[in-house]
């Protein structure tokens, strides 16, 4: 049982890291600011979500579970606010200059 949990954690956290790497690759490779925002938010959300998912079975209590989910939720909320703001600024910057 613990082995199974270990395997689950290792697999999901590793998958999460792959998406973080992909997000970083996108940040470097993508041609325009808004596409880079897609990379930074969408791939990294999934990466963080998978890391959180992998750590859930290791939480010591229900509070620990809620705390991990709350971290994911707060990151989602902050980038749901920051992403559109930066995209709007990038569009204006591209048009203005």
């Amino acid at each position, binding site marked *: 049982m613990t082995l199974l949990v270990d395997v689950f954690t290792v697999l999901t956290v590793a998958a999460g890291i792959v998406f973080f790497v992909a997000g970083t690759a996108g940040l470097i490779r993508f041609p325009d600011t808004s596409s880079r925002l897609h990379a930074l938010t969408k791939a990294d959300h999934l990466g963080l979500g998978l890391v959180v998912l992998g750590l859930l079975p290791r939480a010591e209590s229900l509070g620990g579970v809620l705390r991990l989910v709350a971290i994911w939720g*707060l990151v989602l*909320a*902050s980038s*749901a*606010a*920051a992403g*559109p*703001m930066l995209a709007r600024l990038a569009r204006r910057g591209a048009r203005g200059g």
Partner: protein
Amino acid sequence: MIADLLIVAAIVALALPVVLARSAFTAVALFVAYGLLLAFAWVRLDAVDVALTEAAIGAGLSGVLLLGAARRLAGGPPVEDAPPGKAQVALIGVGCAGLAVALGAVILALPDPAPSLAEPVMANIAAIEVGNPVTAVLMGFRGLDTLLEAAVLVLAVVALWALAPDAAWGAAPGWRQPPATDGPLALLARVLPPIGVVVAVHILWVGADAPGGKFQAAAILAAMWLLPWMAGIAAPPPISRAWLRIVIAAGPVAFILAGFAGSVLQGAFLAYPPGYAKAVIIAVEVVLTASIAVALALLVLGPPAEDRGA
């Protein structure tokens, strides 16, 4: 070890371009990233209290302050002072490198075993009745330092307000944000502050026994208070409001009163009566948190400015 070296490399890679940057805006952006990485360094040094403060104040509040300043200065006249010549820069570089190397040599030559006050702190922590040794030092053993520091914040607010032009005296602090009701930032500013309040109260509450405390809680509260103003859905109170001034002064005053109560009851300034130490400390910390939060928010906003239609 490898993690430490990676963090060190990243911090140096961010710090160097801060001092070499062409534009102030770039330098500030790099500085904010540097502050966040520095918080990692504090975790690696087993200073979680410091890490929380660094992330909240060193990166967060400083970032807001400096980005705002960089934006406002961007349209100003260029710096007219003559930059130092190449020979001068080289000389300064050699001097600073020499100083860094000397300081490094001192660190490598620190005495072993290191002198430490950890033993006396832990031997006497029972008298302070709190579990977090850093809080015990801040509120108990070095309480006078913390009191003076709270007073420094009040003085900084007074000094800042003194910079207000006469015409703007008594008005709301900071530059006026364009009012807004909709948009992504407005939505965040409506949803996030209540969550931030709960997190801040928690950080204050656990500060007695675990990493956390009034500075970290106050920094979060200040950020939550600033957010609706920055989004344009609320305006800061004018600095002439009596309640604002009372809240700023209340923390140091409560601390001083607790100190004098100690000298009457226990015969020493800031001595806590046995059995009530934790209760007194928590009461003072709650008032101090409110004071520090208001002071930090006002410090970020700056003095009231004449509305120049900008």
